[in-house]
């Protein structure tokens, strides 16, 4: 047992860190670190810079541009990415739809889609959830009826993140309404510009509109856009949902936020003389979060090491714990930032909103994102399988209930 990183691993960390710090524009990284909203252009720039370096689809097979990194290297890469405020490669492309096409697509589909997915020449979005199908995804109602060499798609998706930027969508649709739940579902893809597709942004409680409703009204999709077999789309969905294993805890992001909180707390006045970091009550809350975070980091490394021995390709259900604890810590940390801001967190200074009164409040340059980030991060224990669902999984798969 040797719990230290090897010299090679440390060298790798240096390499990625230095790339991130020199090649990804500081203006973009600062936005992430300070909790300001990234534009589409920011995300594309970061993705394309990583892609040029060959790192955007590090997790893919070598033939399609992957890096064949060890789990430890992947861990280091993600941690450095997160703690340096580098926007990650677009997940819809690289860890969701791309791997599904690699696993289930035809050669023609692979050749057609993968290079543009990897390069973010097309921005993809995910059409899974529906108003009546959240935790119970398999109850989805959007239909695709075969007519000749097309499907006619009707229905509605919701919580579609960044659909406003998307060129393509990958969708779960019901192709056999008579089959039981999972059995009649297919995975199809089509351009967002297809006639009959409309999007409606949903404003979230942080003031932004990162999610959308997407409506399908007789949308005509060629049969060759079916990925995998008809009525076997649930396999793709399970594969996709089980695919994200280690980024999920977001240790690096929380570390970055804790560092920022400590830095700010060393200059924000406590009100009663001195700065907030000298207030033991606040400082102890920060330290308590650091302890949980360190434990989670070690837990992640332990699971990662166990994963190496896992040749089954099946996700380790214990990774649900990373989601559970990771989301809890992310929420603790965003709440601490709001607490740090105190009364200065009260003003609402969203520059993309249409509310009147666009005066910049005092303290806005650092305090304005505090409350919106806290509000926004309530979602991390809801989406991607709510924490209640994760507990159900752990109870069954790990504890054997």
């Amino acid at each position: 047992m040797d719990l230290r990183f090897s010299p090679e691993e440390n060298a790798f960390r240096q390499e990625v860190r230095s790339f991130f710090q020199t090649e990804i524009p500081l203006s973009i990284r600062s936005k992430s670190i300070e909790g300001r909203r990234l534009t589409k252009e920011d995300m594309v720039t970061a993705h394309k810079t990583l892609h040029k370096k060959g790192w955007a689809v590090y997790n893919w097979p070598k033939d399609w541009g992957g890096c064949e990194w060890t789990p430890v290297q992947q861990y280091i890469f993600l941690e450095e990415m997160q703690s340096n405020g580098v926007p990650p490669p677009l997940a819809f492309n690289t860890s969701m739809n791309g791997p599904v096409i690699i696993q289930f697509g035809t050669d023609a589909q692979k050749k057609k889609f993968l290079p543009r997915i990897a390069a973010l020449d097309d921005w993809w979005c995910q059409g899974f959830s529906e108003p009546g199908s959240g935790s119970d995804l398999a109850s989805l109602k959007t239909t695709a009826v075969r007519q000749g060499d097309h499907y006619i798609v009707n229905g509605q998706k919701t919580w579609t993140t960044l659909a406003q930027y998307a060129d393509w969508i990958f969708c779960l649709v019901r192709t056999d309404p008579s089959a039981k739940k999972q059995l009649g579902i297919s995975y199809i893809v089509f351009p967002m510009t297809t006639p009959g597709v409309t999007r409606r942004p949903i404003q979230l409680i942080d003031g932004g509109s990162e999610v959308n409703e997407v409506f399908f009204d007789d949308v005509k999709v060629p049969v060759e856009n079916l990925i995998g077999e008809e009525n076997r789309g649930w396999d793709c969905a399970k594969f996709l949902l089980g695919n994200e294993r280690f980024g999920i805890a977001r240790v690096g992001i929380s570390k970055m936020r804790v560092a920022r909180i400590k830095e700010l707390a060393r200059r924000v006045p406590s009100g009663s003389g001195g700065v907030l970091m000298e207030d033991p009550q606040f400082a102890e809350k920060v330290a308590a979060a650091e302890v949980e975070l360190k434990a989670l980091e070690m837990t992640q490394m332990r699971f990662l090491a166990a994963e190496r021995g896992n040749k089954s390709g099946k996700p380790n259900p214990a990774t649900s714990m990373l989601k559970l604890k990771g989301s809890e810590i992310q929420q603790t940390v965003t709440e601490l930032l709001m607490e740090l801001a105190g009364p200065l967190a009260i003003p609402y200074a969203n520059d993309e909103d249409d509310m009147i009164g666009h005066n910049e409040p005092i303290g806005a340059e650092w305090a304005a994102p505090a409350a919106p980030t806290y509000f926004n991060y309530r979602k991390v224990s809801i989406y991607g399988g709510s924490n209640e669902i994760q507990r159900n999984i752990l109870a069954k798969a790990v504890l054997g209930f």
Partner: protein
Amino acid sequence: MDFDLSEEQQLLKDNVDRLTANRYAEIKTRTELMKSAKGYSEAFWKEFAEMGLLAIPFAEEHGGMGQGAIETMLVGEAFGRAQVLEPYFPTVILAGSALRLGAGEAMKAAVIPEVAAGTLTLAFAHQEPEARFDLANVTTSAKADGKGGYVLEGAKCVVLGGDSADKLVVSARVSGDRASKDGLALFLVDANAPGVTRKGYPTQDGTRAADVTLSGVKVGADGVIGEAGKAYPVIERTVQNGIAYLAAEAVGGMNALHELTVEYLKTRKQFGVPIGSFQVLQHRSVDMFVSVEQAKSMALYACVMVDEPDESERRRAMHAVKVQIGKSARHVGQEAIQLHGGIGMTMEYKGGHYFKRLTMIDLMFGNADHHLRELTKAGGLLAA
């Protein structure tokens, strides 16, 4: 001991509940008002005045109702339940308390009837950028002009309702160090007086506030609230009245949010059953219920204690109130969003509005941590 409302109180409660529930029945009403010029409805404000709500805490000789903390609690609960946007808190509760408790007869007679009638709105310009939650931390200066008046110089921030208020109750320092309780004064300043600059903005909970700069603002002798240099007790009691009201408003909000959540759990189906059939969600709803009940109790306790003459007892009690309100509001708010899932995250659903307001209430006039520390410094709640 008697927990029953009097007939008049019950009537007030029924009326204010009915009116606010009716006016804010649609969440769209709220989101549209949020985007309107003033950020609230002047028509609703007029109705509140007609119902006598704006007159509640003031003496009858000034056009008030001569009522007390129970009555403003009833209003607070209703306003919290309906998520009312009108500036009742800044006008009647905060600045209103400062005038009621601090001003001389002449000022009261001049100003309060207008407040009670709904023709004058106020704001309490006390918070400063570096003061955080310390009530005595005031650097805005008031220099005597030699004729009984003062010249104000300084900056205030997050002045609730400050963007549209007609007059401001401004705290400033006539002497003493930055955080000294001695040397503070309160002034009634016209919001459009020369030297007053306001930068208004929305707040996270959908209401409005402003940063206020005071640059050579002249206040006559008739604009001084009480005795200059001795205002700290008035400021403290103003904030204590604010805490009592916020406690009631938070209780109204969290009660409604809890009901909304239980209702949602009973109707939302997943896996072929209402999600409320899952024991885990039931138990978590029960824990929310417990938090709401504990908060209700402390909102009532606030009514008992906010007029307690013993200032140490009153202070400790009001710290305790804010601790419990902050703790319950956080728990109920966070769990409500979690139990709702995605829908609770959207501005199209009332749940998120409650959550945001409850979150902001904790940040107003000291969060739970701050008041716990102050309570501890004061020796705790039980007799020392």
